[in-house]
């Protein structure tokens, strides 16, 4: 292996630094290229166009009567859309000063007082709370009751009793007009 020693060395100073620069430059370009080439493979695991297209849902709320609740699907999860009665709104506002597990004012949880829009996923371990349909138990606070471990939510969707740590999540939404809400 005598060749290794004699051939890999470059006798002249200038020659050696030239090759080291070329080596460095080529390596840098190669690494940059490899990283750029890997990106599409990683990005393909991000949400695809058809999934992103369903990242928002428009809901027609014109048919939802006062006191009525509707469940829609948004990003694969249930969303509760409740048209609150005056009593429910009053109760929710009054409870602002009650002993809340996750303190939050009702006014901060709605854009229009009569429309309560919440993610129907219990913040304890993810079950879907009952209270949407007319015969459902609503728990001790008139909102929702989660049968899995007994969490009670009030008319603002706040956790009042039971193991859940947080209020029912309010998803991003916007009123496109009086009849349509866009969730997400």
């Amino acid at each position, binding site marked *: 292996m005598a*060749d290794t020693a004699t051939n890999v060395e470059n006798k002249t100073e200038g020659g050696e630094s030239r090759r080291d620069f*070329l080596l460095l430059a080529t390596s840098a370009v190669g690494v940059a290229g490899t990283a750029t080439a890997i990106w599409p493979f990683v990005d393909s695991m991000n949400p695809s166009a058809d999934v992103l297209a*369903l990242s928002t849902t*428009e809901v027609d709320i014109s*048919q939802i009567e006062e006191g009525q609740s509707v469940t829609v699907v948004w990003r694969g999860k249930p969303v509760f859309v409740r048209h609150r009665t005056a009593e429910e709104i009053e109760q929710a506002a009054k409870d602002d000063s009650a002993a809340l597990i996750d303190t939050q004012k009702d006014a901060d949880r709605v854009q229009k007082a009569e429309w309560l829009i919440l993610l129907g996923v219990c913040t304890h371990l993810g079950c879907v709370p009952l209270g949407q349909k007319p015969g459902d138990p609503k728990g001790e606070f008139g909102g929702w009751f989660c049968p899995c471990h007994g969490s009670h939510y009030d008319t603002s969707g706040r956790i009042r009793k039971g193991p859940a740590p947080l209020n029912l999540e309010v998803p991003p939404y916007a009123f496109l007009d009086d009849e349509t809400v866009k969730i997400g």
Partner: protein
Amino acid sequence: MRKLIIAAVAAFTFGMGTAHAAGGEYHPELKNPTWSFEGVFGQYDKKQLRRGFQIYNEVCSSCHGLRLVAYRNLMDLGFSEDEVKEIAGEKEVRVAHNDIGEELNDDGEFFTRPAKPSDRFVSPYPNNAAAIDANGALPPDLSLMAKARMGGPEYIYSFLMGYAEEIPAEVSSQKGFTENEDKNFNLYFPGYYNSMPPQITEELVEYEDGAPMTAEQHAQDIAAFLNWAAEPELDERKSMGLKVMLFLLVLTAMLYALKRKIWANVKH
């Protein structure tokens, strides 16, 4: 000898890709209009695609589906989100159940709702049997037609322009050829007789962008649109290709220079 064989093999293999199947039916060579999206630098002409979509929407969609394309994809053609919502909204889509969980209405039919941009194009018939019932034969879905036929958009263009009143001698003189009164003679269609009557005429649809409303223009526009339907990624694919190839050219040249440097004093 060796060079001769290599050259012959190379010419052979590349020629094979473009030649028509040997020893088959006679078909004239495909017409070859110039496409904006052909070649290394090709890109779609969005105005042309919009005209092609207009033809699909006003003429073809009554019989042919486009089920792999979503309405939201039309935004790539330059339509706004509202325009796409309107186009989609013209069709009805079946829903599994309505808002209160019922599956069928009082007539025993499925509930429907207007299509949204996230939906895919609604096919004109609910299934193949209904399509055959209405037309006598099955009008194929057109989503991949430009990739499912040899010659792609050239074939589609030639086919649409290829209906003929007179049967040329090269065709009728073939062994086993018989005329078929019930179907439509087309020079390019395998077997010559197609169930679809000729569709492309002058002023088939009203273009609003000032493009000539000739039969050739219509045929070219719908063929371009169908190529987009089959290959919506073409613009990105070709432009990415240029960047990648340029990068590789530089990197490979640097690797070659480095190789020469490392091998400089080695006898080989």
